[in-house]
């Protein structure tokens, strides 16, 4: 599951997930029927509107061993919100199918560490990096330090702690628009902490949060770029780079 935001706006992150998983020997497919996990509707209160989205989600991922997604938030939505939507539909068949599907959904770092059993993915990234644990990966999925364990094994990386790392960046889906002033106030504090680390790159496991904090850093001309965890883990030493 590439996620709707990566599909439309950050296809490179999707390509990096494919590259990384194939490098690790995983057979990767992209079922074209997939769209979105439905979280934008659910979190705004539009449950009826999320029902057709859930139906297409369940259909698209039928028959696969694992549904891997580069997003703590979308994985969290599948595991913790899909049942809510299925119940709303009143369709017991959908409910059972959705429950079965959500058990096969993994956030990227969970899949790498728990299913593949790897922490060293053979990546090379000689830059100063700080990592922001996004709220849904941290508190909804409890991925713990899996992303950091993966990053620590990246060759050449200079990984530095982010002050106040566990605090929300202020994105929050439609919160970023409905409560934009508060969202920006929270994001500005997060961006200040990022700048304090002296990192060149801010890494996180959710493109949505990165779009928000990255948009602030860009507006501030902070000289810090944002990358998804998959974008870093896909990098290899120059001699081994495959041109894209």
């Amino acid at each position, binding site marked *: 599951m*590439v996620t*709707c935001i990566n*599909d439309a*706006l*950050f*296809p*490179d992150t*999707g*390509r990096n997930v494919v590259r990384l998983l194939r490098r690790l020997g995983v057979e990767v497919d*992209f*079922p*074209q*029927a*997939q*769209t*979105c996990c439905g979280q934008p509707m*659910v*979190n705004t*209160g*539009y*449950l*009826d*509107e*999320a*029902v*057709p*989205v859930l*139906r*297409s989600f369940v259909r*698209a991922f039928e028959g696969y061993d694992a549904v891997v997604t580069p997003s703590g938030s979308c994985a969290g939505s599948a595991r*913790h919100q899909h049942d*809510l939507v299925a119940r709303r539909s009143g369709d017991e068949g959908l409910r059972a199918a959705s429950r079965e599907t959500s058990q096969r959904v993994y956030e990227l770092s969970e899949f790498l560490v728990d299913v593949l059993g790897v922490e060293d993915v053979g990546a090379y990234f000689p830059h100063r990096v700080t990592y922001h644990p996004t*709220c*849904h990966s*941290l*508190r*909804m999925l409890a991925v713990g330090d899996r992303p950091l364990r993966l990053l620590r094994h990246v060759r050449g990386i200079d990984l530095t702690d982010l002050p106040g790392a*566990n*605090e*929300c960046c*202020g994105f*929050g*889906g439609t919160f*970023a628009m*409905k*409560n*934009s*002033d*508060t969202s*920006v*106030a*929270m*994001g500005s504090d997060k961006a200040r902490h990022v700048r304090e680390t002296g990192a060149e790159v801010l890494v996180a496991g959710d493109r949505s949060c990165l*779009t928000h904090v990255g*948009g*602030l850093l*860009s*507006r501030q001309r902070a000289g810090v770029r944002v990358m998804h965890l998959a974008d870093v883990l896909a990098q290899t030493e120059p001699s081994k780079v*495959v*041109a894209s």
Partner: protein
Amino acid sequence: MTGTFVGMPVFPKAAREAVGDSQLRRNLAHATGTIRAKRAAVVGEVEEWEELRLAGAAIKENVLLHLDEHLVRLEESLTKAGATVHWASDAEEACRIVGDIAAAHDATEVVKVKSMATQEIGLNEALAARGIDAWETDLAELIVQLGDDLSSHILVPAIHRNRAEIREIFASAMGEVGRPAPDDLTDEPARLAEAARLHLREKFLRAKVGVSGANFAVAETGSLVVVESEGNGRMCLTLPEVLVSVVGIEKILPTWDDLDVFLQLLPRSATGERMNPYTSVWSGVTPDDGPQEVHVVLLDNGRTRALADEVGRQALRCIRCSACLNVCPVYERTGGHAYGSVYPGPIGAILNPLLKGVGHDDQTDSLPYASTLCGACFEACPVRIDIPSVLVELRSQVVDAHRGGVPKPEAVAMKAAGATLASGRRLGLAERLAGTGIRLARRVGARPWTQARDLPDPPAESFRAWWRRTGGDER
């Protein structure tokens, strides 16, 4: 006289003003940061904290599921112990009962223990309308009352004030309602506390009627419990001849032993202390000791409405510790006034809509959206209220309450998104317009986003288009 929240604007509007107030931001960041660190330290030292949380949640769930039986038992125990029990279905009825009791004793003033239930029902204003002064005796509530202000936090209602501001309030307002502050008052905390002690002492000694709430009401023994830090509450509970306590019907604990769990959970979660300095317990009337006339007003005021909400009823487990406020990144930026209620922060964002119902006023309907759903509140809650899940449920209730009329632009957009996202083919077609969308947003401006944030560059092709073209093969 304290201000009122009536007529407060919707959350985003109130929050916009609050986040623009740099002094407020500074006061709040300092105060919440301090209390967060204290809580984390004392919670971290309890090995079985998670078991305590589970026990607390289970006891309260039992109370809520069998509330009818527990309430009857509480009434019996209280009556047997010599207390008079009153039932109030709403704020107006509760205020009338308290006012009638004070009037029956010809009281022109009452002294008050810090109490959320009496704030919730607007008791001070109701008593003032009957010519009865209600004096707040909790230090922070006194600051709020003297400053003609509104509380902005459940536990520390003057959290938005710094000590220089408090000195100003004491110096200018104390003399109008009693003993004035000393002429040479400074902003040293000890001097400020001393001024409050002297000011309050004469009120404690004079008042015939005390008014309180209760942190817990033990059904088995008919005991009410007040947990506090200053001892001013105990003055109000012991010195007056008459004591009236307004207690929400969800405050029940079935047995005396249950207190064991909650007296561990509450102080550590609230003030970040292992044990609070004062815990007062009274069971009805004790002859020749303390108030000889004891009344208990059991308050509904929307609680049975909340109880009927299958997802939302867990909010009634709340013990008003404020841990969720202190860890909330939204509350830290906006402060409590933006929530337009005596219950601010994450718990306020669910409790107010649950007590009042949604779909009636825009202010209440805006509260479930005053959160990023980051989950810090759920993690901190000592009775494991899953606030993010309740927020999502209440958002769906807000949306459902507005279905059927002329749809808002958001509802139209969500319907269109739902239809588009029901099929990969339709989404693929829509994505061809993504670049156009971003360029358009840049040109005409999507102001809520772009006022402070840049938009990303649109990609040359979507992931979907790339996969269709290459099959995911990069060679």
